[in-house]
C-alpha cells in the first residue's frame, strides 16, 4: 500500500470517528416527580432515557418522611396507634393491628374471641377499601378515567361501614391493647352484607371495563415481569409476589392473633409475574376478602370485646416482631420495650418500601409509558414508603 493510500485511510478513519462523536447523543434525564400526576404522592423517579427507552431509573424517596419510628418513642402505646394509622392511609386499620398484636404478645394478654373476629373483619374491610381504589386507579394510570370514579363510588360504601363502627372514615384509631374500643353498632351486619354484594358487583364491573379490554391487556401483559427469585431477593411481598407465582400469604402462613385459620378462603396466585398478573391477583383478593367478611359476619361469636388490661399500660421488658398480610404486602413492627410507658424503639417494616426497591431492576429497558404501568401495578402508597 502506498503512503498516500495509507494516509487517506487514516484520514478517513479519523473523519468517521469525528462524525460518530458528533452524532453521539446523550441520554435525556427526566424527573418523574416529586410533583407529577403519575406518582401518587411525592415519589421522585430519576430516569435516564435513550429515546423513549429507560436506561436507568432510580426511585428517590423521603419527600414525605415523617419520622414515625422516632415519634413513637415519646408516645404511649395508645398514642402510637394514632400515628401509625397514617402509614398506609388507604387501609388504616390494618396498620394498627400488627402493632397492637406485638404489644399484646409482650404483655401476654389473651384477647376475647369476639374482638379477634371483629379485628379480622375490620382488617379485611380496610383491605377492600384499599385495593378497590387501586383497581380503579390502575385504569386512570393508563388513561381510562371512568374506572377510577367507579372505584371511588363503591369504596365510599365500605368506608361508611368502617366509619359506622369506628367513628373514623380514614383513620379509625380503633384497636386497643386487649381488644377493641367498641362493639359493632346495631343493624350493621345486614348493611355490611349488602355492601359486600355491591363490592363483588364492582369487581365484575372492573373486569368488564378493564380486564377484558384489549388495550388494557396490551398495555399490561408482559410489562414489568418479575421472576419469582428476583422478587423474593428484593423482598417483595403481598400481591406483587403472589402474582409471580409464589404462594405466600401471611394470613394463612402466620395467622397470629387473627382468625383466618377458621375461615374458608383461598390464596390466589398467578404464574406470569407481569403487571396484568398483579392486577388480576388483586381483583381476586378483593373478591376473596368480601367472602371472608361475609363468613365472619355469619360466624361472629358473642362475648366481651375487651380483655382485662391495666388502666395505665406499661409493656414489660422484651422484644417482639409481628407481621401481618396488609393490603400492600407484609407489614411488621419490631417493638423493643424497656418496661416504660412508651416503646424504647419501634422499627416499622412497611410493604411498599420493599416493593418499590425493585424498580431500578424492573424499569431498565422499558419504555416511558411502561414506567407508569409498572409503578401503578406495583401499587405503593407514599406514606407506606416514607413513614
Amino acid at each position, binding site marked *: 500500500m502506498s503512503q498516500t493510500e495509507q494516509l487517506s485511510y487514516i484520514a478517513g478513519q479519523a473523519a468517521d470517528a469525528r462524525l460518530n462523536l458528533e452524532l453521539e447523543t446523550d441520554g*435525556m434525564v427526566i424527573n418523574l416527580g416529586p410533583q407529577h400526576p*403519575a406518582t401518587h404522592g411525592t415519589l421522585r423517579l430519576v430516569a435516564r432515557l435513550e429515546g423513549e427507552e429507560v436506561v436507568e431509573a432510580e426511585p428517590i424517596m423521603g419527600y414525605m418522611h415523617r419520622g414515625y419510628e422516632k415519634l413513637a418513642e415519646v408516645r404511649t402505646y395508645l398514642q402510637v396507634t394514632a400515628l401509625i394509622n397514617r402509614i398506609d392511609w388507604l387501609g388504616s386499620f390494618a396498620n394498627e393491628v400488627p402493632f397492637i398484636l406485638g404489644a399484646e404478645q409482650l404483655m401476654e394478654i389473651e384477647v376475647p374471641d369476639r374482638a379477634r373476629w371483629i379485628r379480622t373483619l375490620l382488617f379485611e374491610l380496610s383491605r377492600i377499601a384499599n385495593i378497590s381504589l387501586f383497581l380503579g386507579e390502575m385504569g386512570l394510570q*393508563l388513561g381510562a378515567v371512568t374506572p377510577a370514579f367507579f372505584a371511588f363510588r363503591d369504596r365510599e360504601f365500605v368506608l361508611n361501614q368502617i366509619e359506622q363502627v369506628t367513628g373514623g372514615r380514614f383513620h379509625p384509631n380503633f384497636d386497643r391493647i386487649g381488644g377493641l374500643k367498641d362493639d359493632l353498632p346495631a343493624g350493621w351486619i345486614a348493611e355490611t352484607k349488602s355492601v359486600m354484594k355491591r363490592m363483588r358487583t364492582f369487581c365484575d364491573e372492573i373486569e368488564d371495563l378493564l380486564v377484558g379490554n384489549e388495550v388494557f391487556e396490551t398495555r399490561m401483559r408482559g410489562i414489568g415481569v418479575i421472576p419469582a427469585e428476583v422478587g423474593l431477593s428484593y423482598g417483595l411481598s403481598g400481591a406483587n409476589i403472589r402474582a409471580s407465582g409464589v404462594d405466600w400469604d401471611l394470613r394463612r402462613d402466620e395467622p397470629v392473633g387473627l382468625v383466618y385459620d377458621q375461615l374458608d378462603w383461598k390464596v390466589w396466585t398467578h404464574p406470569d409475574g407481569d403487571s396484568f398478573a398483579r392486577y388480576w391477583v388483586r381483583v381476586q383478593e378483593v373478591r376473596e376478602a368480601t367472602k371472608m367478611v361475609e363468613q365472619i359476619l355469619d360466624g361472629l361469636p358473642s362475648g366481651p370485646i375487651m380483655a382485662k388490661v391495666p388502666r395505665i399500660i406499661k409493656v414489660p421488658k422484651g422484644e417482639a416482631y409481628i407481621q401481618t398480610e396488609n393490603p400492600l404486602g407484609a407489614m411488621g413492627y419490631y417493638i423493643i420495650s424497656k418496661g416504660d410507658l412508651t416503646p424504647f424503639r419501634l422499627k416499622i417494616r412497611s410493604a411498599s418500601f420493599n416493593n418499590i426497591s425493585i424498580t431500578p431492576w424492573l424499569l431498565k429497558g422499558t419504555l416511558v409509558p411502561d414506567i407508569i404501568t409498572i409503578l401503578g401495578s406495583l401499587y405503593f402508597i407514599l406514606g407506606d414508603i416514607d413513614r
Partner: protein
Amino acid sequence: MIFAVDLLLRDSIGLVEVGIVLLKVGVAFVLLLLGVMLMIWFERKFISDMQNRIGPNLAGPFGIFQTLADGIKLFFKEDQVPAKADPLVFRLAPYLALVPAFLIFTVVPIGGDFSGGGDGTVTWWGRQTFLQVADPPIGFLIILAMSSMAVYGVLLAGWASGSKYPLFSAIRVSAQMVSYEVALGLSFASVLLMSKSFSTHDIVLSQGGYEWNLWMTGLVPFFIFLLAVTAEMNRPPFDLVEAEQELVGGFHTEYSSLRFALFYLAEFMNVITMSGVIVTLFLGGPEGPEPFPLPGWLWGIFWFCLKMVVFLAVFVWFRATLPRFRYDQLMNLGWKLLIPLSLVWFLALATLQVSDNRDWNDFIVLASIFGGFVLVGLLLKRALKTAAHNPDPDLSAPATAENNVEENAGRNTENNFDIENLKEKDLGGKN
C-alpha cells in the same frame, strides 16, 4: 382565475356576492366558536354522567356557560413565557394549531337540500349558493392538507417550550400524525373512488338517494377513517401527545392563560370539524328525510347537526372508556393493520369498479379479490414473522421510525405485486 366553482361566483361578482361570502365566513366563524363552547360543555356533562358525577352545573342553566366562565378566567390569568423557551415560536404555536381547524370547516357543507334529487343549492337574495364557505375543486385535499398542518402547532409548541416533557410530546406527535396521515389518506381514497370528485359538495351530491359511502365503500374505510381521525386529533385512546400520566400535560405543559385556551379551543374545534368531515364523506352530509315541510336547507342543517352530534358523542365515549395505547402499539396498529387494510380494500374496490365497467364475471372477480386478500394477509403475516424472528435486537425492540419505514417498504412491494395482478387481468379483459 377560478377560486371556486361555487355557483355564486360563476357570474359577475358584485356587492351582494361579496356580502354573502362575508356573511358565510362570519356565520361559520361564530358557529364554530359557539360549537366549541357547547362541545366542551357537552363533553364534560356527558362524561360526568358516565362517571357518576354531576359535572358543571352552576354557570347558567345546566352549567352551559361553564366554558365561557373558564375562558374568561383563562383570559385574565398571567401569560407566562418560560425563560428557556423560544419566545417567537412559543407565541406562534397556538395559532398554528388553531388555524387549520378553522380552515377545514370551510369546505364542509353544513346544509342544503340534497334529498329527492336536490343539488344542495339555496337561493339567497336571488343568488344561488351552497351552504359552505367555499367549494374549491380540491376541497377534499384541503382537508388532508390542513389536517397535516395541524401537526405544526403541537410540534412547535413542544419544542419551543424548552422543557423535557413537551419535547417528548413533540417527538411523539411528529411520528404519530405523519403515520396516521397515511391511513387517513388511503381511506379517503376509497371515498374518492366512489364519489369521483375532490369537491366536498360533489361528494355529498354523489351520495344522494341514501347511497352513502358508509355502505357503498363497505364499512371498512369508515372505521379506518374514524380511528385515523381520532389519532390525528390526539384524542383518547390515542392521546399519547398529552398523556397526563406520562408527560404531565404534553405539549401544553408550559402554556398558560389565553395561549392555553387557544390549544383547548383548537382541540375541540378539531373534534367538531372532523365529525363534520366524517358526516360529509361517509354519511351523506345533510341528507335526510323531511317528515314535514320546512325550507329545504333547514332540514339539511338539522340532519347534519344530528349526525355530527352522534360522532361527537362517540369521541367522548372513547375518552370515557378506553385506556391509552402505548407509543409502539399505536405505531403497530397504524402501520401493520390500518394502512395495509385500507390499501388492500382500496384495490378491491377499484377492481370491483373496473369489473362493473367491463362486465366481467362477478364470481371470478370476487374469487380473485378474496384470493388477493388471503395472499396479502399471508405475505404480511410472513413478513411480520420474519421481522419478529430476526436476530437483530433492534427489530425485536419496540418499533422505531426505521422499523416502521421498513415495514411499510415491505408492504409496498407486496401491494405492487397485487397491482401487477390487476394489470394482467385488465389486459386479459381487453384481449
